[in-house]
């Protein structure tokens, strides 16, 4: 059924269609509307057979999810930013135990300085925790990916994060096609846990493991992700056949077959990138883009096939590996190991800074002329940086950095673009 609705509401409805049995909720912007929506459905009796638990922290949210999932319940939670970091120990634990929990990340920056707006620093920080990470490009895809996520998680017995850009997707009202319950039921069978806490068949879960077996257990976690490389496109195809639209998969190339310049990005920004690509294509520039949907497992082979014929690759990242540059770039570089082409890392959209068509256009033109630095910060205000660096030389006690910059900028949030 077509609806004009908020991204968070669309996700809440998708989760409800997946017949979750335990939902753990703790508020943090910008994911909160999702769990609010689900809480309302449970209270109203629209979501039968579901326990909605208000917990005291994100650490508890995922811990309750761990217990519920280990006891055989289909389990869901959502978080963002600091919340994901606060639950970090449990994030690794859920994956280590092989529990098929699905969690939405409303992607948001990590402080300090505290910032509620979108970038990908939060989920990227957990990239090696053993969760599958799928990035949604649109609200429709966010809705669809959650349905695929439960199937993927439960087939592999591996937790899945569905990452959607905070505010840009979570709070945007857009048209979405919400499937019927029968359609989802036909795609997503009842949860048959691989391991379950059951007095009729007692098992020990979470034992101490020494050097004699730890490597094998960890290898099998890696192997599970490698299997996901095959399963994710398979589920995407099956979803397309049953629901009549393409969602998910490992990567999505756009106008890349003859492209000399290819932009790689994740999440909602790909929409803006495509518009700029279309504009430049109209002017005869051989440019295309690739959207990475599956960031974990990282689709090395698929990316190599999509990129190896290009002359240059621009990786547009909404996160920063401080002291190195890009996080996604590392993976792309590995995918292109041995291939001679120019590679650029562009850090963009940190803390919600708008990524505009104008800036991207300039960026792609500079890249096309090979006039980009290896690592570029899109729309970095060089004057502010220079003046702050100079100010710090004037006094030992120069005070806090972020506040000094805000003071110089004047009106708060007057120029986020």
């Amino acid at each position, binding site marked *: 059924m077509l609806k004009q609705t908020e991204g968070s509401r669309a996700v809440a409805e998708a989760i409800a269609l997946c017949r979750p049995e335990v939902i753990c909720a703790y508020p943090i912007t910008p994911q909160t509307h999702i769990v609010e929506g689900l809480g309302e459905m449970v209270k109203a009796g629209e979501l039968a057979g579901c326990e909605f*638990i208000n917990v005291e922290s994100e650490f508890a949210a995922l811990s309750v999810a761990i*217990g519920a999932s280990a006891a055989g319940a289909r389990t869901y939670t959502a978080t963002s930013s600091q919340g994901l970091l606060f639950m970090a120990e449990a994030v690794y634990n859920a994956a280590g135990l092989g529990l098929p929990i699905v969690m939405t990340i409303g992607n948001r920056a990590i402080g300090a300085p505290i910032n509620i707006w979108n970038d990908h620093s939060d989920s990227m920080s957990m990239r090696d925790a053993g969760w599958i990470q799928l990035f949604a490009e649109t609200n429709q895809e966010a809705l669809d990916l959650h349905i695929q996520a439960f199937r993927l998680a439960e087939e592999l017995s591996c937790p899945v994060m569905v990452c959607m850009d905070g505010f840009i997707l979570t709070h945007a009202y857009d048209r979405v096609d919400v499937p019927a319950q029968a359609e989802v039921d036909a795609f997503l069978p009842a949860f048959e846990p691989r391991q379950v806490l059951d007095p009729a068949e007692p098992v020990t879960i979470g034992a*101490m493991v020494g050097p004699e077996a730890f490597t094998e257990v960890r290898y099998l976690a890696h192997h599970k992700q490698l299997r996901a490389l095959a399963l994710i496109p398979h589920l995407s195809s099956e979803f397309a056949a049953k629901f009549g639209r393409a969602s998910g998969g490992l990567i999505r190339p756009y106008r890349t077959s003859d492209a000399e310049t290819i932009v790689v990005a994740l999440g909602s920004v790909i929409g803006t990138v495509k518009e700029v690509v279309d504009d430049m294509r109209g002017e005869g520039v051989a440019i295309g883009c690739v959207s990475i949907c599956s960031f974990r497992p990282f689709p090395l082979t698929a990316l190599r096939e999509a990129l190896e014929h290009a002359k240059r690759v621009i990786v547009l990242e909404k996160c920063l590996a401080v002291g190195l540059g890009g996080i996604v770039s590392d993976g792309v570089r590995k995918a292109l190991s041995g291939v001679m082409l120019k590679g650029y890392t562009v850090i963009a959209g940190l803390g919600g800074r708008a990524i505009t068509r104008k800036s991207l256009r300039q960026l792609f033109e500079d890249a096309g002329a090979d006039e980009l630095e290896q690592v570029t910060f899109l729309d970095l205000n060089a004057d502010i940086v220079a003046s702050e660096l100079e100010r710090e030389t004037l006094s030992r006690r120069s005070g806090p950095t972020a506040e000094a910059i805000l003071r110089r900028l004047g009106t708060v949030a007057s120029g986020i673009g």
Partner: protein
Amino acid sequence: MSTHDTPTERPTQRQPVKFYQTGTFTVGNRLLPENVRSVQADMRRTNSLNSGHRACQGCGEALGARYAIDAAMQATRNQLIAVNATGCLEVFSTPYPETSWQIPWIHSLFGNAAAVASGVAAAMRVKGHSDVRVVAQGGDGGTTDIGFGCLSGMFERNDDVLYLCYDNEAYMNTGVQRSSATPPGARTATTPAVGRQPGNEFGTGKNVPAIAMAHRIPYVATASVANLRDLEQKVTTAMAIRGARYIHIHVPCPLGWGSAPADTIRIARLAVESGLFPLYEAHDGQVTARTPIRRRVPVDDYLKLQKRFAHLFANEAGKERIALVQAVADRNIAEFGLLAGDDAHG
């Protein structure tokens, strides 16, 4: 009764059997009707924490856990799931691929046992398995320190979980470091017996049973491995109640306390009899029963059996510190009315 048939000089006039004559049910148990005997005396006891684990000799935690979980198993007709915090109990019972647990058991993290248990309970509720009950268990570090947030959350939601804290008064698994349950004056690796005020600081620490009561949860109790029958009864009582329940069990640690393994029960009993570890039960936040002290002893008797307090006996300054420990015991005795004949208090 065949064991009684052999003696030749059996008195013709039997004395009436005196239960409790040693202060425990040890003698009485065999003479009691089957339905009131201890769980451990029952042929059908489950040995939920089976033999062969790697606890130290004289480990109070292993003993407490065996009695508590077997009692919970009997109370739930073996429909029990256990959640374990990281710590000695988890480590000594499960070196992979062996396990001493005969029941469904999960260990997740150090600080989240109460929350994981809430999740298990929620799953049982949603699946209609109301007969399957959940216990969470951890040491004092996993309960009173790092797991405290999750514990309080489980309490305030009144989730159907019995939380068992095995309190050996320090982080023993990592090598005897201070926790918020470490008593004042005690030497640990992080409160060394040096300086003008050796050992753990006075005026610190956290009374978690009292904090549990402040949540107004249906049932809170303290117990000790010195009185295992009492521990069993408290677990049985707890399992007959729905909602959040908490039992704080005093379990001596020979390694961490510097005591003889054979003295574990003796030391635990001295803690009770000195007033340092009062035994009581509370329903809905109100104390409803306490175990009177049968033979009061000075705290010296308790302290001197443990090397962690040896520095208190080394000089005159130590005497003042012992007096402060005695004051703690005296305050407990007054607060709970623990002296025999003090029945006016309950």
